[in-house]
């Protein structure tokens, strides 16, 4: 099973290497992400598998909007201009040689062991008492290594700002008669009407229950953002004010920083009486997961709405 999936994963990359048509390339990329997500699940990491599966949806949407813009902006009479000079056989051969050389180098120098196994044992044995919850992965990124989460949230804020500033559009969306393509197909519409409420319930479940089972703020936030995509597709509503969502995202980021600094860096746990500690830890984990989920949902909602504005303009 594992070997088959790894083989499929590498085959999709080779197909993308030879593929000339853009839409097919993007679809093969989606398949590759899906296969990678199955492999992550076999490797015993359901959290990463869930995040990867959600990611494949969003990256496919980004690429499809990008290609749609490319096909509409392209002048149909004008032939595709590509550079005249073709690569010679020597340069092809040199590239292949360089790639093979790198492969050999990586294989030769990759060591047998990477991490101190004591670190793994320490995390597994002590996470439940130090940070709380039953999901050790969540305990690491919300407790021991909360700096990572802070800077990940910062990177997301920077990405949203970059996308807003590079897509030169006004706040108000264009009021045209164009409808989303899904409205032409009754089956897709019917299915999405069923799936959309399930998606948001699943997202909230992942956020709230993330400290007990697989899931957490990132995956739940992506599911909640997916609900808004379904909502746009089915009802064609484009009514959320982007500046308000953007302001909310920044406020949530500030809240994440304050909570992390107060509770993890200032060690507020030492002030709590011993018998109240598990309850306090659970409340902290739920609050932090909720804030991270809200942050990710706001960020990707803004990104998606920006792409829709590009597609409609």
């Amino acid at each position, binding site marked *: 099973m594992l070997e088959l999936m790894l083989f499929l994963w*590498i085959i999709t990359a080779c197909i993308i290497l030879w593929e000339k048509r853009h839409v097919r390339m993007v679809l093969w990329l989606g398949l590759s992400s899906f296969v990678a997500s199955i492999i992550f699940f076999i490797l*015993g990491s359901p959290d*990463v598998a869930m*995040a990867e599966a959600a*990611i494949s949806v969003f990256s496919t949407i980004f*690429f499809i909007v990008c290609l749609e813009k490319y096909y509409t902006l392209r002048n149909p009479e004008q032939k595709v201009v*590509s550079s005249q000079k073709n690569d010679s056989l020597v340069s092809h051969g040199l590239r292949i040689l360089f790639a*093979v050389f790198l492969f050999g180098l990586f294989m030769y120098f990759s060591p047998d062991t990477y991490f101190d196994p004591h670190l793994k044992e320490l995390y597994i044995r002590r996470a439940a008492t130090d940070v709380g919850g039953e999901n050790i992965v969540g305990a690491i990124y919300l407790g021991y290594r909360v700096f990572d989460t802070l800077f990940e949230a910062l990177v997301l804020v*920077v990405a949203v700002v970059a996308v807003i500033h590079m897509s030169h559009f006004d706040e108000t969306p264009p009021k045209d008669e164009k409808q989303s393509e899904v409205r032409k197909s009754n089956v897709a519409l019917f299915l999405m009407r069923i799936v959309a409420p399930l998606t948001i319930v699943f997202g909230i479940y992942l956020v709230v229950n993330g400290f007990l089972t697989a899931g957490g703020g*990132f995956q739940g936030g992506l599911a909640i953002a997916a609900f808004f995509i379904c909502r746009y597709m089915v009802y064609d509503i484009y009514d959320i004010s982007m500046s308000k969502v953007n302001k909310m995202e920044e406020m949530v980021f500030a809240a994440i920083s304050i909570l992390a600094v107060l509770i993890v860096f200032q060690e507020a746990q030492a002030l709590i009486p011993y018998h109240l500690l598990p309850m306090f830890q659970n409340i902290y984990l739920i609050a932090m997961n909720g804030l991270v989920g809200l942050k990710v949902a706001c960020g990707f909602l803004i990104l998606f709405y920006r792409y829709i504005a590009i597609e409609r303009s």
Partner: protein
Amino acid sequence: MPANIIEISAILMFIISFYGLISTKNIIKSIIFIVLMEVSVVMFWLSFGFSLGQLPPILSSIGGMEYIDVVGIENIADPFPQALMITAIIIGLSITAVNTIMFITLYRKYNTIDWDVAKERSLTE
């Protein structure tokens, strides 16, 4: 030398994407190979200390704190790379979003999908 088949596959995937990145002239294809490269790096990190049939690092799936020694530490997946990789995946998606929007801006300006043509047009401007 690498310890298991997943590590070898991840290195192979990284090299294939690297070859695609240096050999293609298509901008969209370059962005796709950057995404593939990032997934292969995630796979490489998750393969550390892997053996088939490891349980996920969630106490409710193991059975509780007292079952850790019954199951054995070596039969539980390492939680540390997973926690790092979840943040890496979200950052990778942000990078994809910024890349595609940069492509649209570039296409508006130079009206091409080819790296060399874009370079020529930016130089003759």
